[in-house]
């Protein structure tokens, strides 16, 4: 027996799960493929241009920011790709390409890298990018066109329930809106895959969508219409479920989803903003550290059945 073998020393456990950060990130990318395809199908060349611009700008910004920070580049962990893609799907189809690129840069730099990169950002980077653009260029960011043609049109939400778009239109995505948000069908398809892989927690979308449905019922609105219109599906399934910026406890995730639903409905019912998904999630992102603190699970053996 060779006694010069060098063994590996490490502490337990010596087995690890197969999942990795980049696997999760690329799975999200895969899950966004149906929504991306629907965006390209409905909005054609514009969609391709905007989504490509966003993703490329995000990747470039990631590399440059990491070089500036003097840390090793982690381009291939897929996180910048997810951010870029999500931001792209959140863009209105008519937005100028430079604006899309600026949004990506803001998302990556201000949303993520200044906080120390992946895992340390308090807010969802893609939403930071979108909210930044919304505040900076409110006109260009709220210009909508109908699918398949360049005729400007208003979104179903702006028209209100009973507008020209029925549930079928909403479900399939045949409505004006951001590139990737229109087709509930495509989004659900991707989200089901992520749920199956357990890469997103069902509590958040269920809490979020459930709250929206309940409140719209109570407020005398059409719940199904509220669920299917605007960026709610995209937000609830892909942005509110972003691991980094949501609570790590189960109870915290419930509160996160419900809180986001309440804020969204408050904004939709009484606010002036055209759409509240972005803000509802951002605000709950801000509350996430507090939720983590306040929903600490009761430790095993503390307050259980006491000794007889």
């Amino acid at each position, binding site marked *: 027996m060779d006694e010069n073998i*060098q063994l*590996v020393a*490490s502490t337990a456990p010596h087995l690890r799960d197969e999942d990795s950060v980049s696997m999760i990130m690329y799975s999200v990318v895969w899950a966004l493929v149906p929504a991306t395809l629907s965006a390209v199908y409905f909005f054609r060349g514009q969609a391709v241009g905007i989504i490509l611009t966003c993703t490329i700008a995000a990747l470039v910004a990631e590399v440059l920011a990491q070089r500036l920070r003097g840390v090793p580049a982690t381009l291939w962990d897929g996180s910048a790709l997810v951010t870029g893609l999500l931001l792209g799907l959140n863009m209105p189809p008519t937005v100028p390409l430079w604006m899309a690129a600026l949004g990506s840069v803001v998302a990556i730099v201000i949303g993520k890298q200044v906080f120390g990169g992946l895992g340390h950002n308090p807010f969802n980077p893609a939403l930071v990018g979108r909210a930044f653009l919304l505040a900076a260029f409110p006109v260009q960011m709220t210009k909508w066109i109908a699918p398949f043609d360049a005729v400007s049109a208003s979104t179903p939400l702006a028209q209100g329930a009973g507008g020209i778009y029925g549930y079928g239109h909403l479900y399939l995505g045949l409505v004006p809106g951001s590139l990737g948000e229109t087709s509930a069908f495509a989004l659900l398809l991707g989200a089901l895959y992520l749920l199956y892989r357990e890469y997103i927690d069902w509590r958040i979308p269920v809490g979020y969508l459930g709250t929206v449905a309940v409140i719209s019922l109570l407020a005398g609105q059409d719940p199904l219409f509220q669920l299917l219109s605007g960026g709610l599906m995209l937000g609830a399934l892909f942005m509110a479920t972003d691991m980094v910026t949501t609570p790590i406890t189960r109870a915290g995730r419930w509160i996160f989803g419900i809180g986001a639903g309440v804020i969204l409905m408050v904004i939709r019912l009484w606010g002036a903003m055209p759409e509240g998904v972005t803000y509802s999630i951002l605000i709950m992102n801000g509350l996430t550290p507090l939720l983590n603190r306040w929903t600490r699970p009761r430790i095993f053996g503390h307050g259980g059945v006491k000794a007889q």
Partner: protein
Amino acid sequence: MDISWLSMISMGVVGAFFALVLAYASNVFAVDTDPRAEAIEEILPGANCGACGFSGCSGFAEGVVTGKAEVSGCPVGGANVANAIAEVMGIAAPADVKRKVAQLLCAGDCEQAKNRAEYNGVADCRAALLAGGGVKMCTYGCLGFGSCAVACPFGAISMDEKDLPVVDEDLCTGCGICVEACPRDLFQLVEEQQGVHIRCRSFARGKEVRQACAVGCIGCRRCARECPEEAIEMVDNLAVINYEKCTNCGACVAVCPTNTIHWQKDKPEVEKLVAVG
């Protein structure tokens, strides 16, 4: 009535009223406080801006007295205030004490000291000890994960490319935090002018030391015999310098077969009273 009279009177009344109330309140509600805290509060800028992270200047002053705040913790006051506070707290270093700096007593870098296994775990010395006691074959030497460098609040310790910590003597304040931080007890505070150091802490027998490390002390005693000041003694297979006697002559350095003894030649020879008397 003329507006100037009005304003004078109203301001006067309000001013007098509050002055009275405060004078009354400060007498009635007087509470004893630590005189040092008050003295520090005197020194502080009194802006109550909260930039120190404490609740205002009095909070900070209390923090200093109770040891929760650094004397230099007031960003508004700057160095002058910090010095004045240090004076109140009586912690300004007396000038006549010889400065001590941290000295690493191991030379077993990643080339000299052999590994017995590969390590895959947290890059922290104390944590590495948990994974089977460190992967170096030598169980006394530097683990090379730089817990000391992380612990040093003055940035005086950096890890060299061979994973051995290097002390920047200019930055070192001799606070002793690294001495505490090293799980292998490899740091010692030594007076600044001492230039000869035996950089090994292994009490293992010579044979084992040779197996584990190329620069470890094998306990050959040559240095002890060579030293004109009898400043080196042997403790459990290890040569140890008595800095009280050492004069930085470097005689031991020449005879050490394993190059364990290091000599920083720029340090002046030390005149030792002990050696003379």
